[in-house]
């Protein structure tokens, strides 16, 4: 079966024919190629990887480790030792906070977090600083979601050990200049964690050229199954870090009173791993690579520009963030005067259009923006112009449906 790189590759749109799916920042739909790959793993290759000394287990191990190599190439890492499989970006961030954090952060240190971060890139640091007596500081953006090099420089002190920021914010959709920020951080002796959950599915990410120390991502936001994701970490850092979870598959030898731990990356992968998910992630990477980021970005930018310009024409609709469609990367967060975001989402739902409403797991940002909640449409390359037209059509009638004159 060859891919068409349109909705027809995605079985969910067969099952749910009238669906307009515009909640891609939350999770993406899965192409048949990914679903078939996961099924093939369980039908033909399933055994406990990294353990058995028989043919099937060797096959499972190969599938799993080939997926790791695919992720390494996809992210431009030097070695597969730098790629740790986790459940998702959230688990990856917790791994960093528990393992690197508890070994390196002490009272008096500072961790700087961008105010627009998702709760998953905030709570692990909030807990870590509370436990260690370190201080959690926030880097604030302007009202369009922009962080500048100057504001970062001003916020760093000689006690700042870590700076955490998403490459693309899940609320603003703005692409942050990670390379510039990484250089500033390193000149200050500060490490940088980059949350790639919203960027890795949509733009080519190369950890070497970005110069980041850690980068995390979720497979399910990039066509892969739920429950598989990853962490990139510089080898020198990962080597010095203690394990995160303890158990099987992550040990070298265990005695009554101690243990030595497996080599990277297995040190961080306790318990039976998600080989089926990794196979699906591998298929997702192949699918994305075959389509290419040039084409993905061309389609997504075109649809973003169309939605943006149509939304701007509708009175009482306010787009959060930059006033330029190019700064939104498929994410358009908005409010409608006088209509609560949950009512907005319900009206879209009645037309089979899926959007998100709420605080998008970024409550401190919404407090900063002084809006309790917002609505968000987020698209992917498999959306089409008709999806956008249907979205805009409903948005135009929304206030009238809520009893306003226009």
């Amino acid at each position: 079966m060859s891919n068409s790189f349109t909705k027809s590759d995605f079985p969910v749109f067969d099952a749910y024919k009238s669906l307009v799916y515009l909640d891609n920042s939350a999770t993406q739909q899965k192409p048949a190629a990914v679903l078939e790959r996961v099924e093939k793993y369980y039908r033909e290759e399933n055994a406990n990887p990294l353990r058995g000394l028989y043919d099937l287990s060797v096959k499972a191990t190969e599938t799993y480790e080939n997926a790791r190599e695919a992720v390494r190439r996809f992210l431009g890492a030097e070695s597969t030792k730098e790629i740790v499989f986790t459940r998702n970006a959230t688990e990856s961030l917790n791994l960093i906070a528990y393992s690197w954090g508890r070994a390196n952060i002490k009272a008096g240190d500072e961790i700087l977090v961008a105010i627009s971060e998702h709760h998953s890139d905030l709570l692990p640091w909030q807990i870590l600083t509370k436990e260690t007596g370190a201080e959690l500081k926030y880097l604030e953006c302007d009202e369009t979601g922009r962080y500048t090099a100057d504001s970062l420089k001003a916020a760093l002190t000689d006690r700042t050990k870590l700076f955490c920021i998403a490459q693309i914010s899940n609320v603003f959709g703005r692409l942050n200049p990670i390379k510039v920020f990484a250089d500033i951080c390193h000149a200050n002796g500060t490490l940088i964690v980059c949350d790639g959950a919203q960027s890795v599915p949509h733009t080519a990410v190369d950890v070497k050229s970005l110069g980041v120390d850690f980068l995390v991502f979720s497979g399910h936001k990039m066509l892969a199954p739920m429950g598989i994701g990853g962490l990139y970490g510089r080898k020198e850092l990962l080597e010095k870090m203690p394990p995160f979870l303890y158990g099987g598959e992550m040990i070298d030898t265990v005695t009554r009173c101690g243990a030595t731990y497996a080599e990277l990356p297995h040190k961080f992968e306790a318990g039976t791993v998600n080989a089926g998910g990794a196979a699906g992630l591998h298929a997702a990477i192949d699918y994305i690579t075959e389509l290419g980021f040039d084409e993905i970005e061309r389609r997504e930018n075109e649809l973003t520009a169309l939605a943006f310009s149509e939304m701007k024409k509708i009175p009482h609709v306010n787009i959060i963030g930059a006033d330029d469609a190019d700064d939104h990367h498929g994410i358009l967060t908005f409010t409608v005067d006088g209509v609560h975001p949950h009512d907005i989402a319900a009206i879209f739902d009645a037309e089979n259009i899926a959007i998100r409403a709420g605080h998008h797991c970024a409550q401190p940002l919404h407090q900063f923006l002084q809006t309790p909640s917002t609505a968000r449409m987020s698209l992917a390359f498999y959306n089409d112009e008709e999806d956008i037209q249907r979205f805009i059509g409903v948005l135009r009638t929304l206030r009238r449906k809520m009893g306003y004159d226009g």
Partner: protein
Amino acid sequence: MTDNFYGEVLTDHNLHPLHKHDLPTATCCHEGINSTCGDDIVLNLEIKDGIIVNGSFTGSGCAISQASADIMLELVIGRTPEEARHYKELFFKMIGGEITEDELEELEEAGALQNVAKMPARVKCALLGWRTMETLLDGEGGAQ
């Protein structure tokens, strides 16, 4: 779900609530929050000689939470706390999809929220005012 579940009764109570204001004469008040939605209201009741003589709410939330609280107050003002609890029971039955025709009649305008029974994501919004009233009556109101 039908296209027009935001009927006139609901949008009207949302846009032009009768009871959304401060109530300096209140004898008891309680805050109700739906943390996942951000709905946040304060319910005020003035209970005198075993009668809810006045009531109001303040705060913010979606149309369903706001209209539901407004309609609830319209029903319970002038009634005893016991009667208010009875309406609350009926309303919960309606949202649970278990109400009879006669009981629905009793709920008057609150019947406009019947369709919320088919919208699991919005049940909490519809119940917010009612739950808040229940807690309030269990506390100070119930002591009267």
